[in-house]
């Protein structure tokens, strides 16, 4: 099994044109802190969402 080991996932918000919204995910993947874009073509985002769908991972709300 070659899936990534995601031990933390939390949305990060940004402010753009006066609006604040979730814009990326701060994640710890295979022990490394990463910032993952909300892009289905990105392999880290795709894996995070696969694990969320499988019920093995929850993305925490932004601070």
């Amino acid at each position, binding site marked *: *099994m*070659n899936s*990534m*080991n995601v031990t933390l996932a939390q949305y*990060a918000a*940004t*402010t*753009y044109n006066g609006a604040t919204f979730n*814009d*990326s995910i*701060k994640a710890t993947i*295979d*022990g*490394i*802190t*990463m*910032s*993952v*874009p*909300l*892009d289905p*073509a*990105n*392999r*880290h*985002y795709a894996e995070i969402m696969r694990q969320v769908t499988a019920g093995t991972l929850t993305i925490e709300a932004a601070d």
Partner: protein
Amino acid sequence: MSSKARGLADLGNAFDDGALSNRNMIINGAMQVWQRGTSHSTSGYGSVDRWQQFNNTLISRSTDVPTNEGFQYSSKIDFAGSADSNFQQPIENGIGLTSGKSVTLSFWAKATGGITRFENVFFLNVTNFGIIASPAVSITNSWQRYTLTVTVPSYSASQYSDVLQIRFDLDPTESGSYYITGVQLEVGDTATPFEHRSYGDELARCQRYYYQVSNDEQGSAATRYGYGHAISTTIAKIIIPIYARLRTKPTISYSGTPNLSDATAPFAVTAIAIETVTSSSNTVCISVNVASGLTQFRNYYLEGTNNTSVIKIDAEL
């Protein structure tokens, strides 16, 4: 010899000498580019560009290469024996896959210790074709070139929508090391000579999938990585120049101790995030946090403070 026969003979000689270009679908098949470092033991990517590993002990750069074949480096894979050992490269969009046509993989390899074979060399196309082929290959303790030709099965849907993966799996009952270089995948049933490319050409191909900015040429002196402006006293938005269109919006990570600066005072970076909304495959905008002290709307630059300050931009498959 007639002029036509002479021309055909010359063409044949050029073919045999590897003069035809852009045949190789593998990127970094000669193991020239090592942006991330010269060895790694963690799962996935970590040293040699475009090549992933799983369940091996160590991947490292080696100068043990076939004699007089034009290679500078090989990848050395150390293996202690476990299930599902992979050394693999995914190829974007399965380029060149056509139902009923052949593709040919060739590579140079040699083994040491107790390694005697690849249990499987997988040709994988998960969504459309599944496992196209997975032959076993015996390898010896001297450099040899191996060639595998497989026929792509029939498939009615789009054949360009999925990733083709070439994957070398070891026998889990064995342990030792093997070396590999000169990996080439080409359309057709013939293994042509390895297509050597310049370092710059290969690096540019790799940077579609992974790119990093670092101080590696400056030592301890500061290198400027990108420019932007502060939106508050703790956050600046910085654009990092990139030189190849990325495959997708990238994941960002960093190591070391980069700074923000307005040329009068440095501010230690505490976090970096990709900005999905303002980034694209050819523009990387990051949100950079510091503890305090920025002046809103003032221009800042992001700089490396030593040769361990690295911004990693990952758009890999």
